[in-house]
């Protein structure tokens, strides 16, 4: 289980997270929505332990990520995969080498075992044909799939997705959504997805939380969000220009 208790974070004079509390159950797909720059990615980065909050706690299975030593942090991160917005592939390594990287660097298994695991993940994400290509030779959608293959290569229990469908065409977005659902059903992973894409959010979410100005405005099932009476959430999910949200 992932728990965030009263997280506050300020970068310079800007308050990015203001008393955020969330509880994400094991095996749940939890979607975080909100405008750009309201602190959605910062929540993911707090869970991944990229920074310590100014106040509050981040707990992964009861262990403090916010006070973790680098060794504990590394152990906690072994349970996690992170799909970055751009894919964050190492540009001088091929698709296969990128996916194999965590296994090679941590010397997990023999070369044959690593090849077998990598082939399995590439097949799951339909990337077998692109295995020997370089990141510069593949499309944005493929880069995200390679990033996802790399994120799941060590069979993490938690996957953090940072805008997995941004910049993709609707067909590719649906493909990525299908993969997220597949991860949940086949690998039983806990997923936290940051997105602006409401169609995608409704498709994949067990619960949705809307963030506004660094705070959680509403948290509920997709149905509850669809039928909300909160004017801020309504304006956002309907994509209206006029309303209480300052643009």
């Amino acid at each position, binding site marked *: 289980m992932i728990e965030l208790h009263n997280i506050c974070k300020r970068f310079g004079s800007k308050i990015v997270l203001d008393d955020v509390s969330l509880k994400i159950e094991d095996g749940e797909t939890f979607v975080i929505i909100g405008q750009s720059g309201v602190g959605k990615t910062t929540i993911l980065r707090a869970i*991944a332990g*990229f920074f310590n909050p100014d106040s509050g706690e981040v707990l992964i299975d009861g262990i403090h990520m916010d006070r973790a030593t680098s060794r504990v942090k*590394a152990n906690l*991160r*072994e349970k*996690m*995969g*992170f799909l*970055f*917005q*751009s894919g*964050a*592939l*190492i*540009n001088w390594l091929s698709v296969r080498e990128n996916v194999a*990287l*965590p296994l090679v*660097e*941590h010397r997990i298994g023999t070369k044959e075992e690593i090849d077998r695991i990598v082939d399995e993940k590439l097949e799951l994400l339909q990337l077998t044909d692109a295995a020997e290509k370089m990141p510069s030779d593949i499309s944005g959608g493929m880069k995200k799939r390679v*990033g996802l293959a*790399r994120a799941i290569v060590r069979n993490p229990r938690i996957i953090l997705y940072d805008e997995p469908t941004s910049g993709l065409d609707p067909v590719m977005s649906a493909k990525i959504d299908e993969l997220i659902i597949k991860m949940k059903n086949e690998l039983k992973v806990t997923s936290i997805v940051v997105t602006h894409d409401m169609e995608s959010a409704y498709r994949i979410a067990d619960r949705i939380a809307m963030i506004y100005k660094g705070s959680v405005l509403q948290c509920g099932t997709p149905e509850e969000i669809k039928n909300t009476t909160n004017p801020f959430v309504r304006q956002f999910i309907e994509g209206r220009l006029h309303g209480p949200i300052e643009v």
Partner: protein
Amino acid sequence: MENIAKEKSIYSFFHSIGQKMLYQIWFSGFTIVLFFKALLQMRFAFAKRREIVKQMYVSGIKSMLVCSIVALFGGMILSLHTGVELKRWGQQDVVPTLMINVMNKEMGAFLTGIILTAFSGAAMAAELATMKVSEEIDALEMMSINPVRFLVMPRIVALMIMLPTLSIYTVILGVFGGALISYFQLGLTFEDYYHRVYESIWLKDMYVGLLKSLVFGIIISSISCANGLIAENGAEGVGRATRISVVSSYLMILIVGYFITALFYGGFL
């Protein structure tokens, strides 16, 4: 009112100077700590041999043409200036001694340092900065892969090897440039020139020159990697990291070069 505005502008002037000084102190500390972290990671150098060799190729072999031209023409300019003047006094025989001394003690390491700052240091800073702003370094951390071991250590080791190696090459070519001028302009034979060069080689000059080039290699790679690792704000940040790493490396090469010279030739050792 006017006085208050004046006081405010004075305050903000000193405030910005203070902030810049604090940042420089922090950055110097960060660079030094980064180097020592890389030093600790050198126990994995054998496992990272492929990356080290790749970096050696990029910094060393690819920069050889530029090194050759700079060393040859640097040597020719140096010997031309001194030789023409000395010839007026019938002292052109001193040119070989002068050339080997200057190249060994100072110019070999200095010229190579300047070339590799522009050639490899800038590339290292830009490459790491691009990786930083495109979240690749965060991705490494997320996979529990130490960026110092994966990225910084191979680059530092590569320049620690390549800078002294290229420095020797620069000395040889610089001295050869001097030989060409001595032969065509000053009337010395190649045999006489190299005989005098051989007589004027001092072990201390050689090891001081090599020590300088080793230190320059550490300075260039550490500063460039540090600037790359702290880059932010997209393409602008990449440009800034590259620019600052080149300027800082140049300045540090000059300053540290002086102190090494003062240490070994200023009566301290």
